């Protein structure tokens, strides 16, 4: 039986220890005992999570970065207002931000297309990383991120913050502790309204001034294409095959991740995948099924775990229902999906060099499950998957979808 500690955190709890970076080792400037943080990607979500960093007493956001001038300046204004000074520096190119020795950790909240790429460059610069979900757009990308975090001793927390939220943790604990009996079905909601992949190439428009909007940096490791402003709109890129994984990765990065956790599959994944109507199903070696679907209750990103002895269902509304009722007792949970707990846990992990709850390997495994479901969707056939080798069995065509050649100079 594994216990999911309701206190957020990783494997080992320890007294807070400031890293040598923050203390100014190796000729670096001291940071007044605060962890220096840089924020890369400052659209709505980026600024939302940034506020969780700003709220931490042991953290100093010193720089922000965005390819949009308007966004990075708005983020700088947020930071400066918080600290009552003008010290925050706004960058267009994240490599300039990463070059600063007073930055210990970065928040990465770019578009999906860049999550892995920026994580790799940040790790190579020695920064610890809190990166928004979904972690990657291909299996190979997040495999590379996970490997790189290990070999460079980087603390990485994926922004799957529901791992730090009470109702979801409680549901997972019911599953992991055996109180639901043998797990049979793990239901994960997929995002509504973005089911179909977008393959569109748009007509070229005049490219904006690079300081206003850096198109080349927005594209990042994705294939170059002529500028059109529509690409960079959330509703367009988020189901475009070059930039995201559409409905499956949008919420599956959260909900399939919780299912993986509930099934104690953080270091593996299903072995067979197939599509039934608008449902995508993965079957684990233990017989349990991961079912990505729509129609679950209780707000956004709901999950439902069913076992031989009972079930639990919960979502962002904070509502939670179990069968039998006694599994829940009279417990109640607040709704919402704040990042504060998750950010706080990350900072504690950074200070103690301990493993995060949403570390790179767990996030890679859960987003990989989503990617393989997308193989079924894109190719229209079932996939047999070897979680150890991370390859499709007997399907060389599907295997080619596991990666995409990175556009130079970016590399895995």
């Amino acid at each position, binding site marked *: *039986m*594994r*216990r999911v*500690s309701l206190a957020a955190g990783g*494997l*080992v*709890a*320890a007294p807070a*220890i400031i890293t*040598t*970076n923050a203390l100014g*080792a190796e000729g670096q400037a001291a940071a007044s005992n605060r962890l220096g943080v840089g924020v890369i990607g400052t659209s709505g979500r980026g600024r939302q999570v940034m506020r969780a960093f700003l709220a931490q007493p042991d953290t100093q956001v010193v720089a922000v970065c965005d390819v949009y001038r308007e966004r990075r300046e708005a983020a700088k204004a947020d930071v400066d207002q918080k600290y009552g000074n003008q010290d925050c520096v706004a960058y267009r190119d994240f490599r300039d931000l990463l070059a600063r020795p007073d930055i210990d950790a970065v928040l990465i909240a770019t578009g999906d297309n860049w999550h892995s790429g920026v994580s790799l460059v940040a790790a*190579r*610069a*020695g920064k610890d990383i809190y990166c928004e979900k979904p972690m990657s757009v291909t299996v*190979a990308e997040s495999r590379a991120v996970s*490997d*790189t975090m*290990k*070999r*460079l*001793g*980087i603390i990485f927390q994926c922004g799957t913050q529901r791992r730090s939220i009470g109702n979801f943790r409680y549901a997972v*604990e*019911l599953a992991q*502790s055996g*109180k639901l009996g043998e797990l049979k079905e793990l239901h994960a909601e997929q995002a509504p309204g973005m089911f179909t*992949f977008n*393959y569109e*190439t748009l*007509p*070229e428009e005049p490219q904006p001034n690079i300081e206003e909007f850096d198109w*080349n940096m927005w594209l990042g490791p994705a*294939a*170059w*294409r*002529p500028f059109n402003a529509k690409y960079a709109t959330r509703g367009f890129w988020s189901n475009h*095959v070059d930039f995201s994984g559409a409905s499956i990765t949008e919420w599956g990065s959260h909900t399939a991740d919780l299912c993986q956790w509930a099934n104690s599959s953080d270091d593996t994944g299903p072995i067979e995948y197939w599509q039934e109507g608008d449902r995508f199903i993965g079957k684990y070696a233990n017989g349990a099924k991961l079912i990505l679907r729509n129609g679950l209750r209780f707000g956004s990103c709901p999950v439902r775990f069913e076992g031989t002895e009972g079930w639990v269902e919960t979502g962002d509304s904070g509502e939670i229902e179990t069968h039998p*009722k*006694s599994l829940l*007792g*009279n*417990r109640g949970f607040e709704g919402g999906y704040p990042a504060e707990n998750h950010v706080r846990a990350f900072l504690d992990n950074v200070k103690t*060099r*301990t*493993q995060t709850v949403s570390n790179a390997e767990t996030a890679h495994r859960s987003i990989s499950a989503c990617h393989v479901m997308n193989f079924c969707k894109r*190719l229209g056939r079932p996939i047999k998957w070897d979680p150890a080798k991370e390859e499709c069995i007997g399907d*060389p*065509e599907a295997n*080619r*979808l*596991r990666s*995409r*050649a*990175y*556009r*130079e*100079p*970016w*590399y895995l």
Partner: protein
Amino acid sequence: MKGYVIQTTLFAAACLVALLAASTGAMATEDTVNNEEELIKTLQRADADWQVKQEACRGLRRIGTEKSIPALAALLNDEKLGHLARFALEPMPYPEAGQTLRDALAASAGAQKTGLIISLGYRRDADAVELIASALADADAATAAAAAGALGRIATPAAIKSLTAFRTSAPESLRPALAEGLLAAGQYLMEQGEGAKAAAVFKDVLNSESLEHARRGAFWGLVHADPKKAPAVLVKALAGDDAVFRDVAAQLVAETSGAKQTKRLAAALPALPVEGQAALLRGLGARKDAVARPAILTAMNSGEKAVKVEAIKALGSVGGDLDVATLAPLLVSADADLAAASKESLRNMESAAADTAIAAAVASAEPAVSAQLLEILTAHMAPEAAPTALSSLGNSSEVVRVAALRSLVVLGSPAETPAITTTLAKATTPEELSAAGDALNAIASMYKEEVLPALLEAMGAANPESRKVLLRALGQIAGPKALEPVLAAAKDTDTALRDEALRVLADWRTADAAPHLMELAKTDNAALRDQALRGYVRLAKEAGTVEAKVEMLNTAMGIASSQQEKWLVLAAWGAVPSKQALDTLRTFLGDPAVQNEAASAIIAAATEFGKQGAEQKTQAAEALNGVLAGVQEPAIRDRAQRALEGLK
């Protein structure tokens, strides 16, 4: 970086659609196109532009065979399409694809050269080592870094040798990429079962590199690559002065395994400095290997508090039922840190046997300990938790009974309700009364009518204090049956009981309380009147239909006499987006005493009402214009004007 701009025309896109449609018989995409011959021809067509060729490359990424390689090869050094050609070639399993990329690399420069190195690295092309190694000295920093990364992925002896050899002459800016390349090589060797070779690479980086994150990574690799020697490596770090490396070592102790290694680590514990012992104990606790238990028990007797605290915390994770008796007394240690460590330790116990032991200890421990054990058992969701809490209600200590009641706040069900009401009846202190009330409220809120009989029975025999508690629990159930005893209590001669009943009534959640609240709202007692009217108006807002809301609010307005009472009712009208509400509210615009409140309510109601249809929009606009005509307050006029514009 691709600074070029190319012309993409709608005509080209139309050509592509036609081509793909012709090849598949339907609107094809890169995921469905299936005619390789057509795609190859597209790449070879002189009149095909970027748009068409890039789509062909995407299709060949999925279905391209050796036949497509020459056509793709021709594009590799094309500034506009080189990356897309790699897009197709990189994942191909054919040796010819590798040969093509190598041939192109030999003749490439700039961005294309960097890209080719990246693809050859991704393919782990051992035949490309010499070519790539020569690029380590490239004047372009991006190309040199990509070469280091590629050689690390390839990880052959020659690749590793080229990386280590170049270190001595490398510019400072390339050192991080070289270090990472070597670490990647070590990692790959380890995955291939070449632990000794991997360890040699990691050791080399650890000893030669000054970058902290590279050293951390090398340390991680060394421990994982050679598990037999791992304890010695970890102990050395734990004995050192570097606090970060001690933490990393603790994490590595946690994430590695092996009974023999655990034994060696545990044996090293006494000789470590205090900070090292504390770190190792953290790691051993998270490692969860019972082999470490004797060493942890010994460390619990340490004279150093930091060591003692970590030992206590670790014991819960590696120990079991036998250790409950050791940890439980520490829950009430005078030293708060030791007490907290003990609680954390017991909380982290995972076995069913441990829960059984904790449950057994509840009955025999001193009261303060029993209380905390009950809390832990509850947090564990242990099957013993509810029965233990139930039996603890009969404990002679109030501390234990209160803890049991708090446990039942979470775990209680109708089955435990009679015992709780019995405890309530005997309770004399505010704390126990409150805890019993919390438990009953929680159960009533969850199980509603199921617990009504038990509560009604208890009401009959209860003393005034416990009756007040029971009234609140009845309020959680609501409905006509629960209402009866509340109404009876509202007429009781005991003033305190009566006041409590009226408070419960004012918060009643079902409509059956409305007539009674209206009666109370007509009395002369100002405080009671206010409370009752607020309750009535709240029920009015929650009524099921607009008609019911209108009727109730009209009734409420009919008895509202003070200015505050009128404000209360007018504000409620604002939450009823209907013509009736707007008509009623407009009649108050002429009354200076409530004009502003009426106007605010009109703005709120009209804003929502106007969304319901064209006719409603017109009526909402009329009401808002009425506000603009009759109200002078600038802020309200401004809001009305904005609401009016919002309707458009």
